[in-house]
């Protein structure tokens, strides 16, 4: 009993001890729990008090996205408001991968109703890997209306595919004036580094050539920004605030679309260029280079084959001949040399030179031939301009010497850019001793002076340069640099500003106005006179034109070889040139025409210039433009120097 009771007491005591042991452990555990809870609380306090600023910023950065809003590009008009470049909604087929169940089947299905190029599909796949699944990716640009209609009818078959309209650059006149307007294209890597990224945020296109490039700053505008709340997937939930883009300015070119069209039409299928300038302010009225190309091809990225075809085309349609074509001026240089002669008192106007058909220098056996092998006989200055006698100008050049000649011709702007600012303009070459030493590492020969005097040899000029030099001549030594822009119309506040012409540059001062008149008389006579090289344009001409034909050799004939146009392949035939201004008594327009391999300045180039001037006269009087005659290749029978 006692032992049992003792056992029971022991057991009871054990139980009390066990309970105490457990309680101690439980309290210990409770303390541990409290401590660890404190640790959690401390961690939370650390994040939410100490780190709050930091994490609040990160959360904001998570939530808010900046979506660029590209500006609308300004329009390009001609001087009278005809639209040359505009923005039109174009339709593109967009695929949202997230919403498409079977991408392959969808693409195949689309291909069966709308023509998809392999390149389209390849580009789609490349882009798809870079973008998020809910971003719409273009699969085909520039759907035509038929495609849009066909797709609309089949829309139910293609969930996740939609037609999107967006503004893109369109050149409504196609090829017309392409070398003046230029074109836009996708921004490339180099441009990306050059441009102000905040201005171009969201913009995909940039001016690549012509006015589009030259006036990029005016046309582009300034991107806006929209702050939006976006979720973790980047999907926009709601807009927060918006900074509107600043639209680009509309630009009015100096080009007169009607005159431009005449210039393009008279060139026909010839390769060449026509530049017409307003001599009073430097306005470029027409800037035609043929052949042309359709700038619309470049807007959305031209496909490889088309681009290669354009580049490989032997007629080089992408080449802006008006600004970059460098041709020997040939006889078109003679009025300038004639004025140099009179002003430098090398010869009086009435003084005669005998032309036996060639020219020799003392002690040199070489004969510098006149284009007229029979010889012109006795020539005064007017005769030499009318008949384009080479021998007369060999003599003038010889007596002037290369240094004086180069200095004087430089006064007309030969050998340097005109200041038009048109991208890609080339300066031509006005040969001089220094130039030859630098370019060829050789000294100057007398013979080179002679052929420089008739615009051959090293001498190169661009059609723009020739037209500008002619304007300087017409203005008796001063002119405004050529300009392509006339007016800017701001799209943000509607402000219109007519730009004043570029500052007039005085190139030289005439010593004697009579000298100038002598040369002009000679130029008029080259058209009006019975033996004039440009007499073909005289019939029906009811205003006076001062002009000079030119024929520039593409290759040199041997000493006694005869130039026979029919025996020479087309691409080696002489270039035909003509430069002129009108009206001769009150010059307002200067025109330069270069027709590659045209053969004859008088036969081919001069009639083109006449038609441009006729059109200009009609426009000036508010009359309808006469329909230009297409050029006739066989008409080119009047020979000249």
């Amino acid at each position, binding site marked *: 009993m006692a032992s049992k009771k003792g056992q029971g007491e022991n057991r009871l005591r*054990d139980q009390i001890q*066990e*309970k105490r*042991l*457990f*309680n101690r*452990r*439980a309290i210990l*555990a*409770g303390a541990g*729990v*409290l401590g*660890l*809870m404190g*640790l*959690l*609380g401390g*961690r*939370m*306090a650390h*994040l*939410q*008090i100490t*780190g*709050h600023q*930091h*994490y*609040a910023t*990160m*959360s*904001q950065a*998570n*939530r808010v996205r900046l979506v660029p809003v590209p500006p609308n590009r300004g329009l390009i008009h001609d001087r009278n408001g005809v639209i040359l470049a505009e923005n039109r909604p174009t339709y593109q087929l967009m695929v949202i991968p997230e919403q498409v169940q079977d991408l392959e089947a969808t693409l195949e299905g689309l291909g069966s109703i709308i023509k998809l190029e392999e390149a389209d599909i390849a580009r789609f796949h490349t882009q798809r890997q870079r973008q998020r699944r809910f971003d719409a990716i273009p699969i085909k640009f520039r759907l035509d209306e038929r495609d849009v209609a066909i797709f609309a009818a089949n829309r139910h078959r293609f969930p996740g595919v939609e037609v999107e309209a967006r503004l893109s650059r369109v050149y409504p006149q196609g090829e017309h004036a392409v070398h003046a307007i230029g074109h836009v294209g996708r921004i490339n890597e180099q441009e990306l580094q050059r441009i102000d990224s905040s201005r171009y945020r969201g913009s995909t296109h940039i001016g690549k050539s012509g006015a589009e490039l030259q006036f990029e700053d005016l046309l582009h505008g300034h991107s806006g920004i929209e702050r939006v*709340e*976006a*979720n*973790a*997937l980047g999907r926009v*939930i709601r807009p927060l605030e918006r900074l509107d883009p600043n639209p680009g300015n509309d630009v009015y070119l100096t080009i007169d679309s009607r005159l431009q069209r005449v210039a393009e039409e008279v060139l026909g299928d010839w390769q060449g260029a026509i530049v017409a300038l307003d001599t009073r302010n430097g306005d470029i009225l027409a800037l035609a280079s043929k052949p042309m190309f359709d700038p619309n091809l470049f807007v959305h990225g031209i496909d490889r084959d088309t681009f290669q075809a354009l580049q490989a085309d032997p007629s080089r349609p992408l080449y802006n001949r008006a600004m970059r074509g460098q041709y020997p001026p040939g006889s078109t240089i003679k009025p300038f040399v004639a004025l140099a002669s009179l002003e430098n008192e090398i010869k009086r106007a009435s003084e005669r030179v005998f032309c036996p058909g060639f020219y020799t220098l003392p002690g040199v056996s070489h004969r510098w031939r006149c284009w007229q092998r029979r010889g012109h006989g006795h020539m005064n200055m007017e005769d030499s301009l009318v008949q384009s006698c080479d021998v007369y100008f060999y003599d003038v050049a010889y007596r002037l010497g290369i240094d004086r000649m180069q200095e004087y011709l430089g006064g007309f702007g030969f050998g340097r850019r005109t200041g038009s600012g048109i991208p890609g303009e080339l300066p031509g070459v006005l040969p001089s001793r220094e130039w030859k030493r630098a370019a060829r590492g050789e000294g100057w020969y007398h013979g080179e002076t002679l052929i420089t005097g008739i615009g051959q040899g090293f001498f190169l000029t661009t059609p723009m340069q020739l037209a500008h030099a002619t304007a300087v001549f017409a203005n008796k030594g001063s002119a405004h640099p050529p300009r392509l822009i006339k007016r800017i119309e701001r799209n943000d506040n509607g402000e219109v500003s007519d730009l004043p012409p570029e500052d007039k540059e005085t190139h030289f001062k005439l010593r004697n106005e009579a000298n100038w008149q002598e040369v002009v008389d000679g130029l008029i006579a080259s058209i009006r006179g019975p033996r004039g090289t440009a007499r073909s344009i005289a019939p029906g001409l009811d205003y006076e034109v001062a002009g000079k034909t030119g024929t520039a050799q593409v290759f040199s004939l041997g000493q006694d070889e005869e130039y026979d146009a029919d025996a020479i392949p087309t691409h080696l035939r002489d270039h035909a040139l003509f430069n002129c201004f009108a009206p001769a008594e009150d010059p307002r327009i200067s025109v330069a025409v270069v027709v590659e391999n045209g053969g004859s300045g008088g036969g081919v180039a001069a009639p083109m210039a006449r038609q441009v001037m006729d059109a200009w006269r009609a426009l000036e009087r508010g009359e309808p433009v006469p329909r230009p005659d297409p050029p006739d290749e066989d008409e080119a029978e009047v020979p000249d120097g």
Partner: protein
Amino acid sequence: MADASLVDQRMTRVQRHLHLDGQLLTALALLSGVGLAILYSASNQDMAELQRQLIRLGLAFAAMVAIAQVPPETLQRWTPWVFLAGLVMLVLVLLVGTYGKGAQRWLGFGPVRFQPAELMKLAIPMMVAWYLSRRPLPPSFSQVLVALFMTATPTALIILQPDLGTAVLVTAAGLFVVFLAGLRWRVLIGALLAIVAAIPVFWMFLMHEYQKQRVLTLFDPERDPLGAGYHIIQSTIAIGSGGVYGKGWLNGTQSQLQFLPERNTDFIFAVFSEEFGLVGVVQLLVLYLFIICRGLYIACQAQDNFSRLLAGSLALTFFVYVFVNVGMVSGLIPVVGLPLPLISYGGTSMVTLMAAFGILMSVHTHRRMWSS
């Protein structure tokens, strides 16, 4: 005063009759209410999801009430059988179980799906408590070894599924029993040293790649900012940007704009922190702390070793839930897939959890009055 104590007495009588603990019940109900409010926000106001959660809560509370009616003695009698059944099912799940989320966790009985590992959350502490309470405390060294074996066997099976979160919980549940039973300190310290020594082995041979990633990413979330680190980065941003007062209910941008992954399940605490700030967090942690302390108090008040050990272990296991989840969401410990109890969206674990509280209530309300 007298009236108040009378009400108290009456309340106590009602509670004893229903075998429910008023304080615990109130706290759990409050927690569930908060949980539903957060879930509403975290699920982007998805009423259907809320309804499903409500049904689960109903089931879980029903399970709690049901278990609470079973006296601890009965539970003690069932214990070996429950444990054995659990072991068998764990083996079965590896053989014929169904896959979900990259692991084999489910057993299907017709339309009912069941996770045996959940049962083990209760069965392991029950079994260890059952075993250790058969002898006077503290346990001998050999008893401790047997207890560890009892814990380790099912844990190993759970790791094989693999289910790291549950494995952590059941191990903790078993170890808590051993600790509360009075495990000698030198054994405890020795064991801790052994664990530290075993970590490299564990790392090299037993951990899955995704688990290693979670650990590595914990120490440097930026090493994988778009992958495993993304969870931690986004949840710390959510918590930190909440500040002291929070962004307000339904206004947490991190969660509403879906930057926060798994925001209605494992990472729901980040939603809460973002929207209610530190003020809300402290209140929530205090509520959890109250529940845990109430559980420990119930354990201390228990009248036999089985009840004591079981109740104490269950209360501490509940703490492990909270600590692991909050620690993981706030970037304090690696990402271990454990829900925040009674708040995270999800089914089976909630029923187990409430069943545990049912056991606590049973222990508390089936005490005999020594005096009478």
